[in-house]
């Protein structure tokens, strides 16, 4: 049985845990990451918290939802976590720091995965700060050479928002797939 995953990434506080929980059919689990032997050798005493949720599909299969640890110091985990991932949902908090700089950083960190799969951007906390605007995010994506990518305002607490974002990213991978 294949292990299909959708990965949620982004800075601390962007809404990854909340989004995984909103899209999940099971109560989400915050778990210690199972680091591979390779990583254990590299960083022997590191345990990393990550979010896990699951969407149950009509045929009984499961899509696994993973929220990656936000701190860049855990970036060694990202590559392992993204293995077998079908798409990346990148959440950026619009109310704190420099959101466009965060976008740049995470696009860079996940660029290998994105080029193999696809990304959609959820800009969260727009109720707290409206700028930068979605067009500014797209301009940043253009500059970084990612082309036209779904960028939505998302409240990670709203299941509908999170589901629309997932739907969008899948439609960029295979627009011919249809419910």
């Amino acid at each position, binding site marked *: 049985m294949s292990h299909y995953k959708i990965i949620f990434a982004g800075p601390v506080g962007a809404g990854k845990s909340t989004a995984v929980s909103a899209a999940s059919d099971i109560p989400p689990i915050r778990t210690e990451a199972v680091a591979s032997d390779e990583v254990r050798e590299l960083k022997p005493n590191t345990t990393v918290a990550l979010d896990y949720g699951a969407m149950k599909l009509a045929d009984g299969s499961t899509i696994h939802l993973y929220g990656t640890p936000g701190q860049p110091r855990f970036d060694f985990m990202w590559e392992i976590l993204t293995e077998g991932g079908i798409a990346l949902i990148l959440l950026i908090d619009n109310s704190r720091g420099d959101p466009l700089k965060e976008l740049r950083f995470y696009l860079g960190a996940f660029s290998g995965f994105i080029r193999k799969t696809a990304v959609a951007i959820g800009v969260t906390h727009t109720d707290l700060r409206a700028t930068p605007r979605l067009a500014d995010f797209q301009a940043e994506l253009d500059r970084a050479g990612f082309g036209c990518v779904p960028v939505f*305002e998302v409240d990670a607490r709203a299941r509908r928002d999170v589901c629309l974002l997932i739907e969008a990213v899948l*439609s960029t991978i295979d627009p011919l797939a249809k419910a």
Partner: protein
Amino acid sequence: MTAQTTLRLCHSGMDSRSLYAFEIFLSRVGPRACEITGEEAADVAFIDIDNDLGTYLLEGHRLLYPSRPLIVSAQSPGHGDDPLTIEVTKPVGLAAFSAALEQVRRLLPPTTGDRPRSLDAAALESADDIPDEMPIEALLGHVAPRPASADPVALLRQLEERMSTFYVGSMPDVNLDDPAARAAIFYAPELFLQGEIARALAHAREIQRPVRLEDRSGTALFLDPRHGLAYQARSTNALRALSQLPTRGTVNMARVEARDAPQVAGLDSRPLEALEWDVALWASRGRLPRGTDLDHPVRLHCWPNLTRLAVPPEAMRIAGLWSRGSFSLRDTVRTLEVPQRYVFAFYSACHALGLVEQIATPAALAAARLDATGSTPAAAPPMRGLFKRILGKLLGARLGEAAPG
């Protein structure tokens, strides 16, 4: 004269087994108190909202039939303040249901009484005396919590399709190579409210003040581009009606004066972009802005903010395709195998927000030919099945939860 008409009642979301039980229940309410009819002919609709789709069915019905009374059953009602919605608590007894029907009768316009089928009020009044021997919940028990149809995705798609006529009209596909038929697929945005709004916004930006748009019945909209907000002084239905036909000089703009402040303060605001999007869809009704080329590739600069805008049918797949490469409108229809009006409506709305453009350089035309003929975008076939199932799941989640605003 106390003759009572037989109410025509439709239901939303019951399977055949529950329907049978429900019919028995209704016959006990009174032999001809009401009859089950199709959705379009009904005087009143009955919806149970305690299942996955309940809220959505309710909203969908309200949108399709804005002035129709609804009887809504719920375990714990009491959230609605819609005067046309009558809530009954489950388990619903005969007396409660007859009382609800009685309330419906009072809500209906008198013309409904013209219909020949009528029955003696006595039959109905006596319904109060019937003991609650068949609580409706027992009958509907096997419906909840699943929606009625054997295939919920099909039911959702059907509903979405029907509600979408507001946004994409119902124009059938035309032969795009027939010049006469082709004329039908274009509209002139500037002749519609869409154009009035565009002009009003340009003016407001120029004078750096909000403006209002009025027709013969007064102010319809206040537009404040500096804050990106629109204030709607009309119901959505009224605004849609105003948007669908050319305005023919009936709409004027004026700048907002200090004396308008109290009226504006009493209105809800929404993002201007969401208004422009809706108004463009309503005007387009599945057509394209005049001058659009069917064979020039479409370039999507930026996705529409589909979490905060109405999602017309197949919008995701169309935008997904345009994110991948160069496709003309003709190729988009062919590649996705969707009705022309879906693609045209979505293009028109994106165009109104400045999100798309057509590229006619020789290089772009060549690239489009390549995209359309050569590589039909395809994930590995095993993924398509998986995607199909995920999308089915997401559609339920999307439609089951009401959109904001």
